[in-house]
């Protein structure tokens, strides 16, 4: 069982949080918007906390919020806010200031994702997936020439 800290509970962050909690991990979520807590609860038989999850309201760069959410104990840190630069900043903070062993960061811009990946960050680029999926489907259709 790992302790997973997720910063940014949008569609992606909250879905990953729920599946990781269901898989038996300890999961703590940070988001600046209290509404994102409802996204965690939605469709669940119990509240997020009753299911064993943790939630902290705070901005991604708020050191106190990260500490309160348990960053010092985290085995895995996931940066999944809606801002590339925010994600890249907090991912580096998690790695260098708090020495979290595993850091995953979502970066929408393929160019920045590629460069930071080369610098040693584990980046996940949904845009790159979308591009290759379009290309695959088009190849399968046999794009008319």
């Amino acid at each position, binding site marked *: 069982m790992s302790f997973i800290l997720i910063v940014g509970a949008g569609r992606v962050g909250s879905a990953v949080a729920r599946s990781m909690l269901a898989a038996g991990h300890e999961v703590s979520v940070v988001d600046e918007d209290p509404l994102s807590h409802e996204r965690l609860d939605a469709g669940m038989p119990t509240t997020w906390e009753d299911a064993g999850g943790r939630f902290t309201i705070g901005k991604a*760069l*708020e*050191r106190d919020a990260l500490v309160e959410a348990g960053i010092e104990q985290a085995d895995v840190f996931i940066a999944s806010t809606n*801002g*590339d*630069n*925010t994600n*890249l*900043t907090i991912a*580096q*903070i998690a790695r*260098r*200031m708090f020495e979290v062993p595993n850091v995953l960061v979502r970066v929408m*811009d393929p*160019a*920045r994702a590629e*460069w930071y990946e080369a*610098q040693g960050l584990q980046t996940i680029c949904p845009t790159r997936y979308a591009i290759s999926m379009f290309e695959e489907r088009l190849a399968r259709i046999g794009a008319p020439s």
Partner: protein
Amino acid sequence: MYAIIVGGGKVGLNLARELLSKGSEVTLIEQRRDRYTAIEAELEYVAQYGDGTELWVLERAGIQRADLLVAVTGDDEDNLLVCQIAREKYLVDRIIARVNNPRNKQYFDLLGIQPSVSATDLILRLIEHEVPQYGTVHLLDLPGEKLEIIEMEVVPGAAAAGKAVQDIAMPEGSLVISVLREDGGFVPKADTVIEPGDEVLVCLDPGLEDDVTPLFTG
């Protein structure tokens, strides 16, 4: 010198004007269309439209040959990232970052983005929210140059209040470099009298702050 400025708000625009007037080549990158249009009307080809944290935008601006990159957007993460990319990917010699929220200064330091500077408007917020007990505000550290600049409001009854600058017992290695009074600021002379309510900027060697501040803040 070729300077790229990212962020065309008040700070970025005025910085561009200053650097241009000193004969530098400047590109100012702004991502808000309305702001870009206004800047382009004044500075023409100096203005470039785009998100300065995107690599292709920086490359279009010629970052490979830039001598200086200044990141002064209103977003600390943007400023931090632009500076990191400029220095580590494009090997720009000199970078300067604006810190909007002083609490984020620790992250600029952590990632080695220096110097980082809080702009004046945010220093006001800092004064309101985070004034240390002596009523002093740290404006700027220049660790490479071993200098600090601090700002203090002169308290009535303090040793310096009512005294000419030359008569204040300042420690060796400290100097009053400007006085903000009512509407304006000026550089004091030896016989300038410091008045209660003045805001003074003092330049000093690191470590002297505790000796200097009591003279002005009682």
